[in-house]
């Protein structure tokens, strides 16, 4: 009875609200509210945009959202009869019969699986679970997980070698390669890779492994960037070479020609050091490949896949046909597969001077010499594999839950395999597609994803050319888990994601037509609801702090310096960085103002998961957390740290690295923590 009455009242309230909003003065209020949140005066007065699609939990959230599969990488059985697809969101390994094009098996794997390998005899699958720090060994006969191997942080690409007795796993978050003895399932050693390594490829002779990496190597502030391709000798199990790809980043994958003479990696060539004053003439981003001669002192040539007015954004995978004649690059932000004629690439390499080869890296026209086709696909093509006979290329359309099958002769999509994900496209899914697609920038030069790979940040410092050209350089910020931490932007000018991605965004960043409002709704819904951080398995897997972290926490909450002086409240760590988000959501001055900054105060950034979010500070001048205080805080503006001993600073940083998602700190009472950690 009570329940019914409650419900009745509720409905009554709703009706009153609806009527009120439609006609009465409430409409004016609603208009004002929407205008404020969107920073425009013509956004439709649709409450649902913000209040329904951005629901993050509960019944409604479940109703409006759907669980997609999101195929990411795949493998083909040695006999070509089966296809194994890693469903990144579905946390599953899907088996597809390539004759019937049907999903015949679905094996649950760990969280956010990354890569699948199939043993030569086709009996075992190896799946790296990027957010679980494990590799599953799966018996494909019984579909059972026979072994779980503990890896480093963020296992991604893998290679089987030495007669499949050795497994190399790329630990993408902890920047290493783990080498496992598959007989004992024990880790033999770890080698240092580049920054955020991901893709791995074994040379045809089995002697070398190349590993691509995404984030840039440490470098002097505001100087040209580079990434590393790590070369490992499988006999000595040591890194033999660190190939440097200059002016590039986000190299997702690498592949060898069947002859083994060339290794080709995908890459992006960003223009972060140039003022972002225009998009025309490739002033923001270009995309391409690095062709590496594998012989000693071999050349490294970077070739673009773009054209002067059209860009192939966000290349992900590269597959070379078994005959070595063609390479396929999945341009995941442009929804195309770029087909490269390797014979023509070889010819170009043979007939070009070294000066010419250097220039090709910045030449949008040269792709016509070797790109023979651009094949349109479904949304967000990611991993690819060639069938053993070389007749087909299978493409995982991540945001389409489908596998497209390209005929390598006709270079057309011959058929599409539906993986059986939800048929409807939710608002957040639409937003995710928009996020990943470059269609909303001028000449499709870049997607949101380009600078925010995996919705995080790309670790680059951009010259956003706010006023003039050399001013206001800014460090890319993560978009993960930012629903509760408005305002946005380093200068805190944006009170909502709506405003952030609104008109000014299009005027000065995408430089094309702004998002249509329903697109904007979708994008906002995705950003607000859809994005999780990877678990902080590296520094805080269980929530129990290490001794050093615990000591560091004490420093974080301290109210007095080592010599007993009281630290003014505004200068304590927890004042501006209180849990759960470790931000007070206000603008603060931590003495980081540069001569080139227009704003004096900066939005206090959240500290959750900051351990791999370098560089730090608004303009990214601090390459490491240490540098924030050792190099860029003269005068204790950024908290009082000058009295700290080195080990105390180390401890504090260990604590900061331990910070996980905000949800773990929702019930933390700051007062109590302060009391607890300042007790004598």
């Amino acid at each position, binding site marked *: 009875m009570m329940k019914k009455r409650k419900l009745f009242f509720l409905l009554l309230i*709703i009706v009153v609200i609806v009527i009120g909003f439609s006609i009465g003065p409430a409409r004016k209020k609603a208009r004002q509210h929407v205008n404020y949140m969107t920073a425009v005066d013509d956004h439709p007065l649709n409450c649902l945009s913000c209040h329904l699609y951005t629901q993050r939990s509960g019944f*409604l959230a479940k109703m409006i959202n759907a669980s997609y599969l999101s195929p990411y990488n795949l493998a083909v059985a040695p006999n070509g009869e089966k296809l194994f697809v890693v469903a990144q969101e579905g946390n599953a390994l899907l088996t597809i019969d390539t004759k019937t094009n049907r999903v015949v098996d679905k094996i649950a794997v760990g969280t956010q699986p990354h890569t699948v390998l199939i043993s030569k005899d086709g009996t075992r699958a190896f799946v790296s679970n990027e957010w679980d720090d494990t590799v599953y060994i799966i018996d494909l006969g019984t579909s059972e997980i026979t072994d779980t191997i503990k890896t480093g942080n963020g296992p991604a690409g893998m290679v089987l070698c030495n007669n499949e007795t050795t497994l190399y796993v790329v630990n993408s978050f902890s920047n290493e390669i783990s080498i496992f003895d598959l007989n004992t399932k024990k880790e033999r050693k770890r080698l240092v890779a580049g920054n955020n390594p991901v893709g791995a490829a074994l040379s045809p002779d089995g002697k070398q492994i190349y590993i691509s990496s995404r984030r840039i190597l440490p470098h002097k502030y505001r100087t040209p960037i580079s990434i590393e391709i790590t070369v490992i000798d499988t006999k000595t199990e040591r890194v033999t070479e660190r190939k440097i790809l200059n002016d590039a980043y986000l190299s997702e994958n690498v592949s060898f020609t069947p002859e083994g003479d060339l290794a080709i990696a995908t890459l992006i060539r960003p223009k972060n050091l140039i003022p972002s004053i225009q998009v025309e003439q490739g002033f923001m981003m270009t995309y391409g490949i690095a062709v590496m001669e594998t012989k000693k002192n071999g050349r490294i040539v970077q070739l673009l896949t773009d054209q002067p007015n059209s860009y192939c954004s966000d290349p992900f995978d590269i597959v070379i046909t078994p005959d070595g004649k063609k390479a396929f690059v999945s341009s995941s932000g442009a929804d195309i597969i770029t087909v490269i004629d390797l014979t023509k690439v070889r010819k170009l390499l043979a007939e070009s001077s070294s000066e010419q080869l250097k220039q090709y890296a910045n030449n949008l026209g040269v792709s016509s010499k070797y790109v023979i086709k651009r094949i349109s696909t479904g949304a967000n093509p990611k991993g690819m594999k060639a069938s053993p006979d070389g007749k087909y290329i299978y493409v995982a359309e991540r945001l389409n839950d489908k596998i497209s099958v390209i005929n390598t002769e006709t270079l057309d999509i011959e058929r599409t395999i539906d993986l059986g994900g939800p048929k409807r496209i939710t608002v957040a899914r639409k937003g995710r597609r928009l996020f990943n697609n470059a269609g909303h920038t001028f000449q499709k030069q870049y997607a949101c994803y380009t600078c925010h790979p995996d919705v995080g940040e790309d670790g680059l410092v951009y*010259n956003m050319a706010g006023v003039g050209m050399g001013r206001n350089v800014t460090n890319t910020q993560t978009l993960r888990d930012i629903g509760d931490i408005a305002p946005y932007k380093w200068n805190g*000018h944006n009170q909502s994601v709506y405003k952030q991605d609104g008109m000014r*965004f299009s005027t000065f960043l995408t430089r094309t*037509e702004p998002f249509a409002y329903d697109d904007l709704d979708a994008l906002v819904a995705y950003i607000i609801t859809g994005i999780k951080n990877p678990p902080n398995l590296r520094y805080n897997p269980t929530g129990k702090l290490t001794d050093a972290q615990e000591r560091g926490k004490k420093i974080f909450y301290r109210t007095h310096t080592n010599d007993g002086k009281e630290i003014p409240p505004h200068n304590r760590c927890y004042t501006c960085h209180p849990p759960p988000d470790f931000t007070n959501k206000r603008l603060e001055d931590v003495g980081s103002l540069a001569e080139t900054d*227009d704003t004096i105060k900066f939005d206090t950034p959240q500290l959750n998961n900051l351990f791999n979010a370098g560089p730090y500070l608004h303009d990214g001048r601090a390459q490491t957390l240490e540098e924030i205080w050792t190099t860029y805080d003269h005068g204790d503006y950024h908290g009082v740290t000058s009295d700290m001993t080195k080990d105390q600073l180390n401890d504090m940083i260990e604590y900061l690295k331990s910070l996980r998602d905000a949800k773990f700190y929702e019930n933390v009472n700051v007062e109590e923590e302060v009391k607890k950690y300042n007790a004598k």
Partner: protein
Amino acid sequence: MKLKKQIVIIGLFVAAVFVGGYITSCSNMPANGTIVFTRVPVANIDVEKAIPHLFKGANLQAVNRMGKSGEGENLTPGFYSACSPQVSYDAKHILFLGQKTETDLWQVWELNIKDKSTRQITNCKMSCNSVCYLPGDRIAFSKKVTDKKTGITSNALFTINMDGTKLQQITFHPHNDFISTVLKDGRILINSRQVYPKKGKVKYLAMRPNGTKAELFYADNSAAIYGQCVNEANKLIYFTEQNPTTKKTDVAEVSYNRPLHSKINYTENIQGNFYWALPLSAEKMIVSYQSPDSKNVGLWNFLQSEKKISEPIYNDAKFDCFEPVCVKPFQRPKKLPNDIVMAQTSGLFLCTNINFTETGTTQATKIEILGLEKSLGTVDMEKDGSVFLSVVADTPVRIQTLDNENNVVSGPSEWIWVRPFERRGCIGCHENHELVPQNIVPLAINKSAVIIPVDSTNSKKGSEITKVSEMK
């Protein structure tokens, strides 16, 4: 509590569906596929003189594509002359240039297809001579302008609201600019030809509708561009051009993706001259064609794959047929945002390396900025070859590079200008237009921009634009 909140939201959702349904209503589409073209009493065509295409005594003629030759309807019966039809994106209106009487100036008019009514949009003191719809509520057109100081006459582009208000000039160089079309990326494609200091070749420039970032789109020194250009599905641009030696005009195509190096001539093996091309599909197009034995230019179907003229659509010996357009809704180009600030009096210009040229590197140490009348000063480059200028807005300048002894190393360049608060960059001087900048911090931007014209009494470097503005 959570449940409560969710029920409120469901209620709101239901309400919104109702409101939405009320607001949305469908409208009728106009007849699809009608071809409208400029019908001109036969005259000798001189390609050079045919730009601008103000055809005396012409009218807009509508024909059914499948209909017979010679039939059709005069859409501009009340005009002495009418030409340059442009169909709106919703295919409800046609923009055209017209004069009611022989002595009237040519103005921009709009025709309502449904009721054939017309309304005048511009009221210029000079004849308008090319026109197009812009995404949004404005149109662009061109007309003659004369520089007050130098007396140089050229043809500039303007934009204006559909109601004839807020006229704005958007090109500022001594060129004869005519609108060709609006690219799907939102930029205006301009048929542009330098008139000062000497006459140049016709080139296609692409430029944002607010007059910023004008850059070379297509040029071919071996041919004079002629004819209106159209694009289809954002990929291919068609136009006609004249071979300077044989004087034969052909239909050519370039790819939008790489216009400078993708030209295909479709008609070089067909005798006769082609003056216009209107692609209808990947297979078919309509061309304005005059066979060697014909006295007039007719509208013909053309099969691209076979490179073959098929049957005529409209071929009347008394008339030449130009400027065919198809009345059917089409994808609106992007509406590009406007980043200029009219309150400013200058814009910024960055060259990342003045010694970077198409032919290799040069050894210049500074640049000289040339105005229409005189030099606006010289500026030393930074070590890396970069220069950073604050140039008075809406004023044409050319740049040449100099060595230490003030000898010209390279240049002068094409005329360029910046709009108020425009920030634009170039990679080098006379650089290969397909090159992108090297990712380094140009040293010049670490200092304030040098104000152009350089104040000879005070060589100190000036300040940048000071208006605080956000970036995203």
